[in-house]
């Protein structure tokens, strides 16, 4: 059963058609990824799914409810939460307070929310830094905070926008089990990711977006061998040249 259904969604900014006729289904309980070269429209597609942008055409259905063009806070209440590629902490507040704001979606009481923040912080490995001001965190810490805050809303579907970007290899290694742990705990995850190591490692299914269009989908290994995908990343004719050099070598 699919939790999120996107059908024939398009969105243009003036003459730039950022997302064109994209359809995809995210099955409940899965860990899937959306990849594509820079400027492919991945973040725009996330913004359309979460309600930050309204599609020009097409339908988006989440958990049986049509949510096309619905405000982000209503979607969050339904259980669809996104994170941001450029981390957006509430800088003047502590880590605990930051996470508590997410937790307030489930808890009206301030104390319960602050308490829930602790539990979430444990899950993402921020427990030691609960009382630090959010502005004092490292990049890796801020990415975790971004994740923790979204997680505190108890989402059914989490849209992760490049949570691994800007991290060093060690930090990525530390983060992978955290993301996998989310799915084990029953959260469906759709992530935008450039770090292929992570995509290969985590995702069951991958969609490839290039110039606003869905050009391929499948398992990570299928997708990375798809000539269209290689061309989208490396330029026209590259796939053919690569095949030629491989054939010559053998």
């Amino acid at each position: 059963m699919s939790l999120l259904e996107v059908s024939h969604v398009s969105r243009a900014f003036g003459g730039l058609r950022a997302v064109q006729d994209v359809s995809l289904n995210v099955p409940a309980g899965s860990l899937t990824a959306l990849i594509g070269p820079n400027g492919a429209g991945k973040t725009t597609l996330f913004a359309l799914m979460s309600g930050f942008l309204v599609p020009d055409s097409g339908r988006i259905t989440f958990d049986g409810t049509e949510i096309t063009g619905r405000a982000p806070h209503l979607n969050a209440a339904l259980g669809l939460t996104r994170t941001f590629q450029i981390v957006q902490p509430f800088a003047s507040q502590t880590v605990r307070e930051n996470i508590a704001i997410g937790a307030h979606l489930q808890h009206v009481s301030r104390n319960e929310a602050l308490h829930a923040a602790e539990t979430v912080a444990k899950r993402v490995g921020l427990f030691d830094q609960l009382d630090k001001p959010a502005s004092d965190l490292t990049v890796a810490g801020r990415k975790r905070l971004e994740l923790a805050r979204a997680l505190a809303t108890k989402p059914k579907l989490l849209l992760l926008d490049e949570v691994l970007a800007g991290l060093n290899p060690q930090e990525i290694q530390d983060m992978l089990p955290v993301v996998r742990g989310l799915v084990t705990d029953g959260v469906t995850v759709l992530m935008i990711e450039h770090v292929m190591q992570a995509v290969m490692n985590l995702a069951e299914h991958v969609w490839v977006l290039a110039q606003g269009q869905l050009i391929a989908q499948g398992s990570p290994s299928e997708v990375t061998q798809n000539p269209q995908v290689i061309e989208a990343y490396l330029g026209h004719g590259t796939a053919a040249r690569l095949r030629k050099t491989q054939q010559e070598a053998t």
Partner: protein
Amino acid sequence: MKDIRAIALFVLLVGCIPVLTDSGVVLNFVMMALYACLLAQAWNVLGGFGGQFSFGHALFFGTGAYVQAMAQVHAGWNPWFALVLAMTTSAAVGGFVGALSFRYGLKGSYFALVTLAFAEVFRIVALSVPFTGAGVGLMLPLRESVGNMQFATRAGYVWSILGLVTLALCLTAWLRHSRFGAYLQAVRDNEDAARAIGVNPFKVKLWATVLSGGLMGAGGAFYVQVFQYIDPGLAFGPHTSVEALVGAIVGGMGTLWGPVVGALALHVLADVTRNLFGQLPGINMVVYGCVLVLIVMFVPRGVGSIGQTWFKRAKPETADKKENT
């Protein structure tokens, strides 16, 4: 809990002043300082906690003042009931201006300009229509009695304004420990991030404007009771808007005691300059301007934060514990 105890202590200390002295100079000073506190706290709810800088809080002040005066002069209301009506009306005006500005996503300087424009519109309307007394203004008949909120001594005024300040302090303390307050601060810090995790920024900012407007209206109503006179310039002129925002910014935005400290500091400063340069009318505004520039440059977190830093340096352990609780 800690905040409530501090507020109780503050009320007790200030409330004792009229018992200890009946010097008109002292009581007048305390009264006007508390009045400035109320304006600064009203502004702080929206500007400090919500990050929406209003340059036209006189709009709510003037609405409160005029409703208080008109309810008594035209409709013969008891001033205590008029106070409730004044607060409700200015809160409603807050809701109207808030709904209009936030509906269209006005932020930062645009919001500031809209509030400024609204205050000016109201000033001109008050100058032109008959029921506000136009340019002549409205005068309250002198009827000294507690039931009439006109006190024989300054003590009565000190206690009534202290009551309003306490209300503002309790509201601010609630903002610091409630979901609404947390949402308001989240919207101030990063609106998009707040939206993504389920905060409706429109609703939150709207209610902040309503609360802020209501408190400011109480300030206006109090002004009318003390001076028994209001005209369009006093009600909607920029003076009150500036006083409210400077007090909050100087003391420390988004804090409980900042606006109190700021308003008090400014009031002392204004009194001193008035005594030194009494022959120059409006000199206190010049001083306010200079102080604002200096504070924004050197102590952006407000005068209140200086004390906090010292306290933390002196007792680092207790300060840490405080944050944990």
